[in-house]
């Protein structure tokens, strides 16, 4: 594997060779490095359990709450080391994370959930309302359900709520962990449109962990493929999408075009880059 030179623009986030251990004994990341250039969208791909969420959580320093630890390597955001910061300081510096599995505040209403997203910002009531309106224009469904307790809303509504909540912080960089999970197809598209929109208009950088490789590679500039806690492939999104192996394993298309799910005859033993 040759490293593909990624970008010429300044890096916004750089993760250098980190190692993560859970519970003192479970080694999950075995030296992961990745860069997110400023104003770009980077996709983090990989199978279940590859370590995508763990990478995200190490960046946002949320690992500590799960008895995980970054034992090696460093993480820099805007050129400064951030491994020792609290999540609150990170959010203040403009790095915000949408966690996997929604994590809405169940007892708060949708609107209150969104408002907590703006906790770190000192803005007037009016600005806050504008911000809220913006999220509602992105997700009209949320506006309808604004008064319901988040715990009672449907899975997809909660997902929108979680994404909307992090937008409220107006971050300069967002870590999106599986944003498409549980969302209807057109909402998935919409979310990525939002990503592209924010990226284009406001220069927000994104690191997106995504299983829906298809969509992710369509919107991303760069991609990393993670397997078993290691980066096994990286490069421009188009290049990745064109790679035969990626096509086969992540996009579900082979030489003969897309196969029907019904026709998969065997559980396929995937070819691995790493044994």
């Amino acid at each position, binding site marked *: 594997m040759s490293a593909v030179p990624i970008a010429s623009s300044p890096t916004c986030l750089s993760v250098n060779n980190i190692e993560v251990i859970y519970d003192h004994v479970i080694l999950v990341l075995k030296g992961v490095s990745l860069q997110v250039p400023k104003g770009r969208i980077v996709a983090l791909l990989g199978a279940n359990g590859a370590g995508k969420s763990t990478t995200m959580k190490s960046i946002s320093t949320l690992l500590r709450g799960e008895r995980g630890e970054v034992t090696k390597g460093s993480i820099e955001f805007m050129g400064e080391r951030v491994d020792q910061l609290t999540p609150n300081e990170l959010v203040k510096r403009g790095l915000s994370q949408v966690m996997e599995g929604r994590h809405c505040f169940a007892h708060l209403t949708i609107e209150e959930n969104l408002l907590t997203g703006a906790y770190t910002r000192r803005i007037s009531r009016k600005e806050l309302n504008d911000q809220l309106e913006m999220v509602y224009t992105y997700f009209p*469904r949320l506006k309808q359900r604004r008064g319901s307790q988040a715990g009672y809303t449907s899975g997809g509504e909660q997902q929108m709520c979680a994404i909307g909540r992090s937008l409220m912080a107006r971050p300069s960089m967002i870590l999106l962990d599986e944003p498409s999970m549980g969302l209807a*197809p057109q909402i998935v598209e919409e979310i990525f449109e939002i990503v592209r929109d924010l990226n284009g208009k406001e220069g927000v950088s994104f690191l997106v962990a995504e299983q829906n490789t298809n969509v992710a590679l369509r919107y991303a500039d760069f991609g990393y493929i993670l397997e078993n806690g290691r980066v096994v492939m990286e490069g421009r999104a188009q290049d990745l999408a064109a790679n035969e192996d990626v096509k086969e394993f992540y996009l579900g298309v082979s030489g003969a075009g897309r196969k029907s799910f019904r026709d998969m005859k065997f559980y396929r033993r995937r070819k691995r880059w790493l044994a």
Partner: protein
Amino acid sequence: MQAQRKIGEVILDLRNISLAFGGVKALTDISFDVREHEIRAIIGPNGAGKSSMLNVINGVYRPQQGEIVYRGQHRKDMNTYAAAKSGIARTFQNIALFKGMSVLDNIMTGRNLKIQTNFLLQALYWGPAQREELAHRRKVEEIIDFLEIQHIRKTPVSRLPYGLQKRVELGRALAAEPEILLLDEPMAGMNVEEKQDMCRFILDVNDQFGTTIVLIEHDMGVVMDISDRVVVLDYGRKIGDGTPEEVRSNQDVINAYLGVAH
């Protein structure tokens, strides 16, 4: 392939189901049926009422109106125990595994309705209790083999990545050897390859055991490929019902859900 599978009579019939939470109308006057051995998909935008529908079928929610006919029995509503007892098993949208238990134990819980010995015998782990436990264990190991999760048998489920948890949950539902299997977004958060595996499992269950399957899924590729009939919900109303082809070309469905066809 499709031709070989025998789709039988209607075994579950939902008639004019309405369900509301306070002011929120989750389901409004919905009727549809499920035939034996078929794969029935429910699709619709977020918050349309799909999960609520499943909750009605297995008695987590009690509909305010309507009737559930299951294997000829008419009921106003189900209760969870009766549903489980009569062969309805399910998985959940937000994984509902027992976090503190190992994969093996989680799947073993699926067999609880088949266990005969009482707790005293179990406490002694003696004679029939032991034999029974081992017999169920054997059955569960088959499922573990089937789902290819041997390597994580003894791992606590909370440590598993999302995708594997979904698979374990499927295993738990299968362990009950259900007649109807309700699956709520079993493939969310999986990549294509894993989805292919999952489809394979579902189809095999359907083929080998003749299990009827009700499936909620947002991946249209999957839904269109594997389901026999699809019902479409939107805002708690039914806006379409039919074979995948019919649904795909239904204008209402396109407007409300599919958008441009992929």
